[in-house]
């Protein structure tokens, strides 16, 4: 829009506070729900917004929208969005339900860390899914980093144990551990995950540790339940939100950040090796509404 048109619009449509009626706020609430933010968070955010708009005497739609963006950004600003890789080695365990993008994100992250000058080792901890280790091995080649793997059907704990030993022997900076996709309501698989967590705590007690939950942006309200369960089983230090290159918005991470105080650390924006970016809350929110 040209400057004159903008000026004219601002001049001819001065909004009084009253003219921002319920319809306007309903539309914002609808936009949030369509972005998978969830009913509770959407209602809460809009209630907060009404108060703020009133307190700050906001009368223009765009100003009010910006205030909503502020509120959502605040909700997302929890914890430290950077990875803690302060020890050698440091260990990152990558977990999540089936098909969300764990293995791919590890490939991208390995590439990123290597470019930062770190020596990276991948642990093929998914010994269950067909060709999972082959897939990770291709990513290791692409990123030019080491991998420790065993045969399909091997004990993932044994692979992890080997990887940690190899990391110490080879002076590795970061171990990125892939795990099999598992639904959070499966007790036996969650117990297996808790075991992996314990192996890391035992074998690398002083290492800086990250436990990253990979979440598919197309996931709806179930995402919050996933995050709760994985946090309880393995602890969570961050989230990788994948597939944001589609039309899904991934709004459920706002509810997750709020309830569990776990920050989003990275976003996945495609299937290529460079398609992983640090999370920018403001940018994310601007895409949301």
């Amino acid at each position: 829009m040209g400057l004159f048109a903008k000026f004219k619009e601002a001049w001819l449509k001065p909004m009084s506070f009253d003219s921002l009626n319920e319809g306007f706020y309903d539309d914002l609430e609808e936009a949030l729900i369509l972005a998978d933010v969830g009913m509770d968070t959407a209602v809460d955010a809009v209630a907060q917004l009404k108060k703020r708009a009133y307190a700050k005497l906001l009368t223009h739609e765009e100003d009010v929208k910006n205030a909503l963006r502020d509120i959502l950004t605040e909700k997302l600003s929890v914890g430290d969005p950077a990875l803690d890789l302060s020890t050698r080695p440091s260990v990152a365990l990558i977990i999540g339900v089936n098909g969300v993008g764990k293995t791919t994100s590890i490939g991208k992250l390995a590439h990123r860390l290597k470019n930062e000058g770190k020596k990276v080792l991948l642990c093929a901890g998914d010994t269950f899914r067909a060709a999972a280790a082959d897939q990770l091995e291709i990513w290791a080649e692409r990123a030019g980093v080491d991998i420790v793997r065993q045969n399909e059907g091997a004990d993932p704990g044994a692979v992890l144990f080997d990887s940690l030993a190899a990391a110490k022997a080879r002076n590795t900076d970061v171990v990125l551990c892939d795990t099999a996709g598992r639904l959070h309501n499966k007790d036996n698989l969650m117990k297996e995950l808790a075991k992996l967590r314990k192996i890391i705590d035992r074998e690398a007690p002083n290492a800086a540790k990250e436990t990253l939950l990979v979440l598919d942006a197309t996931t709806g309200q179930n995402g919050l339940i996933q995050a709760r369960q994985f946090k309880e089983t393995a602890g969570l230090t961050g989230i990788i939100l994948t597939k944001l290159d589609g039309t899904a918005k991934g709004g459920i991470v706002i509810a997750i950040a709020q309830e569990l105080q776990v920050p989003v650390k990275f976003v996945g924006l495609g299937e290529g090796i460079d398609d992983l970016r640090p999370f920018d809350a403001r940018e994310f929110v601007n895409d949301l509404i």
Partner: protein
Amino acid sequence: MAFEGLSEKLNAAFKKLRGKGRLTEADVREGMREVRLALLEADVSYKVVKDFVAQVTDRCVGADVLDSLTPGQQIVKIVNEELTALMGGSNARLTFASKGPTIVMMVGLQGAGKTTNGAKLAGLMRRQFGKRPLLVACDVYRPAAINQLQVVGKQLDIPVFEMGQADPVHIAEEAVKYARDHGNDMVFLDTAGRLHIDEALMDELKAIKAAVKPTEILLVVDAMTGQDAVNAASAFDEALGIDGVLLTKLDGDARGGAALSIRAATGKPIKFVGTGEKLDMIELFHPERMASRILGMGDMLTFIEKA
């Protein structure tokens, strides 16, 4: 189980209504607000919820309902009927080709479960109908996609056709020829995951369709999908004209509102559901069961009897 939470919510909403004798129009609208909330929390598409609630409200505020002595019971019946209608009528099966091999093309977003469930379906067809399926590796992009298909093929003892990283259209054509020559009466094309907004890759699917004229194009959808289900399903349907949907990962605890959304948005039936990672974990989709599950029909029926 999927939908459990939704049925609880609906039950709670109707329990409130049940307390009263006769319902006013305002009562009905109050109950519908809870229905709306429950459906949205179950990830049913915003627009579908809006239409659904409007339709049910209209029917419920009809004179005969409000005048009835047991309006709560009437409303439950109506919600149930409308929901069942939305889920589709009788359960739909795969169509078999009248001549030549039946070609089933698995399509969908990344990670939805195409490869695994294509293989499961091939196994099911062999078990149920004595078919001799062939799995075809048309995903030439995902790292180790071909290996993955070979591994599941081996586990099921079903042959896998692959040509490495060749053109997927060409692979599909050659696979169909191979099937004809080798007595395979069903061909399952495992295509790469793709975004519905990726024009180049959507064009690739159209080209495969034009080249081999599949008997069935099945859209594979993750049951955990949120509001985006409608966008993705509509786009795949518009581009390809899908014949049905395979809903995966129903062994999770997602309420699976996507099932309703997709059905409403495309009008295409859900034909199968995936209920686990193992290769025999696939079932026929039963719309009436799914609708009952949404509404918690067990509870609902006892409630109706008491009302």
